[in-house]
C-alpha cells in the first residue's frame, strides 16, 4: 500500500518531513539522535499489534472489545464500598467533555481564568457543604486524602499514632497503610484500631476513650462509616480528640451532607472524603477522587500537600482573578522539603463536581439525601424479611450490611445466583472483615427505585430458597 500520512500527525505528510530535514540540514531524523550512544539503541525492533489507523477500524475493534463487559445499567447493581452508582446529570457530562477543560495542562492565570474559577467554585461549594473554610484542590482518592490528612496531623502534633475504627474499608485502609509508612521507617505512623459496638457498628466511645492518649496524633472516623453506619454523636468523638490534643479527622461522603451533619458543625479539624459521588461516573473505579478541607487557620493551611487557588485582584480595578496559594510548600515549589507531594490529580473531576453541586443546590442535596435514606432503609426492611437473612445494623446511610450466615450459603454463591438473574449483589465482606462471616455490603442510592429493590428481594428469596 502507498504511504499515507497519519491523522494525528501533521508533519507526517512526506513533503513536510523533508522540508523540516532540509531546514536543519539533515538527510534523515536518524542523524538527530547523535547524543545517544549506539549501544543504547535497541537491537530488537518494537513489535506491536497491527496499526488500526482508520477511525472506523479502531472503533470497530474497541466496540467489539468493550461490548464484552456487562455494566451496571445493563444489570441491576448493589455494589458500593468506595465507588458508588449515582445519577450523573447530562450537564456534568457535557462540561466534562469541553475541549478547553479536557485537553490542556497549565496556562497563565489570565488565560486559565475560567478553569481557575471553576476550581474555586469546587472548593467554595464543597466548603459550604462541609461548613469549612479552607479546601484544597482534589487528590487521587478518599484513601489518599485520608493518608495525607493523617500525615498532616502527625506533622502538626509531632505524634505518631492514629486511632481508626476496626471496621475500615479494605481498599482505603490499604492506601492509608501505605501513606503511614511501614514499621521501621522513621516516619511510621502507627494505626491502632478501636472497637465498635456490636449492636450498632458505630465506634465504641468507651473503647476510644481508653485508647486515646497523649501519643495520639489524630482520631480518624468516618460517618457514614465504611459499612454505612452513621455516627450518632460525632461531636463527642471530636471532643475526646481535642481533650487529648489530637486532631479530629472526619471522613464524610459529601452526597450525605444535605441531611447528615457537616464536619464544621461538630467541630472536626480536618475533613476528607470522596468526590466521585458528585457527578462522576464510576468508570470501573477510575472515577474516584478525594478532598481535604479544614478550618482556615495557618496551623492547618501550612500543612496542605495540595495546590489550591485563591481569589485575588487583577491589575484592573474591581476585577477578580485567581492565583495559586501556598505553592512554595508543595513539592513543585520545594521538592523533598515540601509537604508530601503533589502532581497531576483529578482536576477535571473538580470542575464536574462544581457543576454537580450547583445543579443540586441546597434543596437538591437535602432531597437527595432523604431519598437515599428512604430507599436504602426500605431495601433493608424488605431484605430482612427474607428467612435467615438479617440486616446487621440500623442507622445507616446508602450502604448496609446484610448478614447471610443463617442461610447456609456463601455470599459468592448467592451473588452467582443473583448474576444469572441480572443482578450484581452487594460485595462480600468475609475477606476484609472475617468476624462478620458471610455478610455483604449492599448499596442503594437514588438510582434504585422501589421496583428495583423489590426485584432484588424476589431474586434473593429465589436464590436462598
Amino acid at each position: 500500500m502507498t504511504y499515507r500520512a497519519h491523522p494525528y500527525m501533521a508533519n507526517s505528510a512526506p513533503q513536510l518531513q523533508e522540508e523540516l530535514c532540509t531546514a536543519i540540514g539533515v538527510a534523515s531524523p536518524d542523524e538527530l539522535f547523535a547524543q545517544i550512544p549506539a549501544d543504547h539503541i535497541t537491537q530488537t525492533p518494537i513489535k506491536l499489534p497491527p496499526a488500526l489507523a482508520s477511525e472506523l477500524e479502531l472503533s470497530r475493534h474497541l466496540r467489539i472489545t468493550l461490548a464484552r463487559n456487562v455494566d451496571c445499567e445493563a444489570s441491576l447493581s448493589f455494589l458500593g464500598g468506595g465507588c458508588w452508582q449515582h445519577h450523573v446529570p447530562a450537564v456534568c457530562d457535557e462540561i466534562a467533555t469541553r475541549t478547553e477543560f479536557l485537553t490542556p495542562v497549565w496556562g497563565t492565570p489570565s488565560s486559565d481564568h475560567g478553569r481557575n474559577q471553576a476550581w474555586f467554585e469546587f472548593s467554595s461549594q464543597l466548603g459550604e457543604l462541609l461548613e469549612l473554610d479552607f479546601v484544597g484542590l482534589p487528590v487521587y482518592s478518599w484513601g489518599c486524602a485520608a493518608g495525607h490528612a493523617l500525615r498532616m496531623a502527625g506533622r502538626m502534633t509531632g505524634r505518631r499514632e492514629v486511632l481508626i475504627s476496626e471496621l475500615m474499608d479494605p481498599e482505603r485502609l490499604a492506601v492509608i497503610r501505605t501513606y503511614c509508612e511501614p514499621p521501621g521507617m522513621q516516619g511510621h505512623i502507627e494505626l491502632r484500631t478501636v472497637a465498635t459496638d456490636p449492636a450498632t457498628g458505630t465506634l465504641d466511645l468507651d473503647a476510644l476513650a481508653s485508647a486515646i492518649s497523649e501519643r495520639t496524633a489524630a482520631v480518624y472516623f468516618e460517618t457514614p462509616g465504611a459499612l454505612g453506619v452513621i455516627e450518632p454523636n460525632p461531636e463527642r468523638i471530636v471532643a475526646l480528640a481535642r481533650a487529648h490534643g489530637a486532631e479530629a479527622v472526619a471522613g464524610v461522603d459529601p452526597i450525605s451532607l444535605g441531611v447528615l451533619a457537616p464536619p464544621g458543625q461538630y467541630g472536626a479539624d480536618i475533613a476528607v472524603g470522596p468526590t466521585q459521588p458528585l457527578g462522576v461516573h464510576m468508570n470501573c473505579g477510575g472515577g474516584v477522587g478525594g478532598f481535604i478541607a479544614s478550618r482556615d487557620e495557618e496551623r492547618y493551611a501550612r500543612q496542605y500537600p495540595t495546590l489550591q487557588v485563591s481569589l485575588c485582584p487583577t491589575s484592573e480595578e474591581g476585577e477578580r482573578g485567581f492565583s495559586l496559594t501556598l505553592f512554595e510548600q508543595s513539592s513543585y515549589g520545594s521538592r523533598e522539603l515540601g509537604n508530601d507531594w503533589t502532581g497531576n490529580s483529578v482536576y477535571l473531576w473538580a470542575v464536574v463536581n462544581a457543576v454537580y453541586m450547583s445543579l443540586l443546590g441546597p434543596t437538591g442535596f437535602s432531597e437527595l439525601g432523604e431519598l437515599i435514606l428512604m430507599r436504602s432503609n426500605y431495601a433493608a426492611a424488605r431484605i430482612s424479611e427474607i428467612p435467615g437473612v438479617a440486616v446487621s445494623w440500623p442507622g445507616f446511610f446508602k450502604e448496609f450490611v446484610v448478614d447471610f450466615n443463617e442461610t447456609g450459603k456463601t455470599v459468592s454463591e448467592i451473588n452467582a445466583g443473583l448474576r444469572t438473574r441480572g443482578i450484581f449483589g452487594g460485595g462480600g465482606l468475609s475477606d476484609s472483615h472475617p468476624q462478620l462471616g458471610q455478610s455483604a455490603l449492599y448499596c442503594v442510592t437514588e438510582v434504585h427505585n422501589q421496583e428495583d429493590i423489590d426485584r432484588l428481594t424476589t431474586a434473593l428469596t429465589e436464590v436462598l430458597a
Partner: protein
Amino acid sequence: MSNPSLRRYHAAVWDEPLVLEIGREGRRGMLVPEPEAEVRATAGTLDALVPHTARRQKAPGLPELTEFEVQRHYLHLSQETLGMMGISLFGTCTMKYNPRLNELLTARPWLAELHPSQDEDTLQGVLQIVHAFSEMLCELSGMSQFVFQPGGGADAAYTQACITRAYHQHRGELSQRDEVITTIQAHPCNAATSAAAGFKVVTLPLEDDGYPSVAALEAVVSERTAALMVNNPDDMGIYNPNIKRWLELVHDAGALAFYDHANFNGVMSRLRARELGFDACMFMLHKTFGAPKGGGGPAVGAYGCSEELVPFLPRPLVHRDGERYRIEHDAPLSIGRVREFWGNLPQVVKAYSYTRALGAEGIRQAADLSVLANNYMEGRLLAIRGVTKSFPELTAPRLEMTRYSLGEMTEETGVTVLDVQNRMVDFGIDAFWLSHEPWIVPEPFTPEAGELWSKEDIDYWIDVLAAVVAEAYEDPETVRTAPHNQAIHKVDGSGANDPEQWATTWRAYQRKRRAATV
C-alpha cells in the same frame, strides 16, 4: 503591537460572576424522584432514621439555579479558558491530540458504568484491554509487567518509593538503605515521593556536560543507597550517555534503578528501559500516550518493572488464561495499594486506543517527528534577539525539547519570561513551560512541539514569540502589563500567601473582606 502577519485574537470576556453569587431562592437545577409511598411508609421519618445530633442544622449556602443557568455558567467558564484552542507547546507535557473517538467510546455505560468490584466474568472486555496494553508497554520498555493504579506520574514515583521500601525490607536491608539518589534535573516528584516514603534524598547537581558526572555518582553511592530515580533525556533535551555505567554502579551497590520516562516521546522505539538496565520505569499515559490531561488529571502513571519486582507491585493485576482474563487481588509481598481500585481505566483505554491507532511504525514516526520539530525550532528561536540556549556549548542535537533562556532579554529590557508568557496569550498562544524549581538557567522557557503540531503552527508560535520579544525592546510597558486581550487582566497574586488575604473558598473570602472593612 500591530503586526499584520499575526492573526487578530481576543479571548471571550464574560465578567462571569461566581456561581455562588447568581440565582434566586427557590429555583431548581435538578430534581430527584420523590420516594414512593410504600418506600416512605416502610422507611419511616427522617427523624427516626437519623438522630438529631447527626443531622444537618443549617442548609448549605449553595446556589439556586436552573439547569440551563448552570450549563451556561460553566460554558462561559470554558470559553474563558484558552485551553489549547490555539497552539500549546507546553514542554514536558507532550501536548497531543486526544482523539474524540476515545472520548465517545469510553463515555458509554460499557466502561463509564462499570463497578470495580464486579465479578471478573462481567469485566472481560476491560480486562482484555488492560492486559493487552500492559503487554504493549512491556514491548516498548522491556519490562515484565505494568500496573495502572498510580493516578499520575508523581504517584508512579511514589509507587517506586514504596516498592524500594518493600524490596529492601524483604532482603533485610531496609534499615541500612535509607537514601535515594536523584538529580537536580529529575522531576521534583522523584525527590518528594522518596522523602514522603521515608527516605533521605541525595540530589546530584549538573556539571559542564549538562548532567552529573560518573564520579559524582560514585562519590554518593554506597551501601546506604536504596534507589536511583532519574529521567533521561532531561527536560533540557540532554541525554546522559553514561547511564549504563550509572546503573552498574547502582546495582553493584545493591540498589534499584527507576527510569522516570516523562520524556519518552523522543526516544520511543529506540530505547528500552530494561535493556539499559533499569529495574522499573514509568510512562505517563496522559502525555506520551494520547490520553487527555484534564487540566491536571485524571491521569495515569503507568508503572512497569522487571520480573524480580513483580511480587512487590500494588494489586490488582490482570492475568490471562487462554481466552479468559482474571484478576489477582492480592499477593504476599505486594505493597498493597497506592490508590483505591485499579486506576483511571478510561485513560488506559484511551492510551491503548492511541497506541493501536499508531502501531509500531507510527510510534517510531512520532518520535522522529518530535525530535525533528524540536531541532527545526532551534534554528529559528536562536535567531531571535535575547534568546539563548541552555548549555550552548553542547552542539549535539537535542531530543524532543530544549531549554532556552530569555535572560539576556530580561537584562536588556527588564521584561521577564512571565511577562512574555502573559503577552503571548494575547495572541491565542497557550503558556509555554518554564522550568521546574530550581531554575538552572535564568528566565527559562521550554517549548515541545511533539508530533501533533504542524510546521505552520510551529512557525506561527515562533512568529508570536519573536514579535513579543521585539515588543519587549521597543515597548516594554505593553509586555509588562500584559495580557490585554484575555478573559481578565494581569492577576495580582501578591497577597495569596498572606493568611489575612488568602481565600480558597468564598466563605473565607467573605469573612476576610468583612474583617478588613470593619
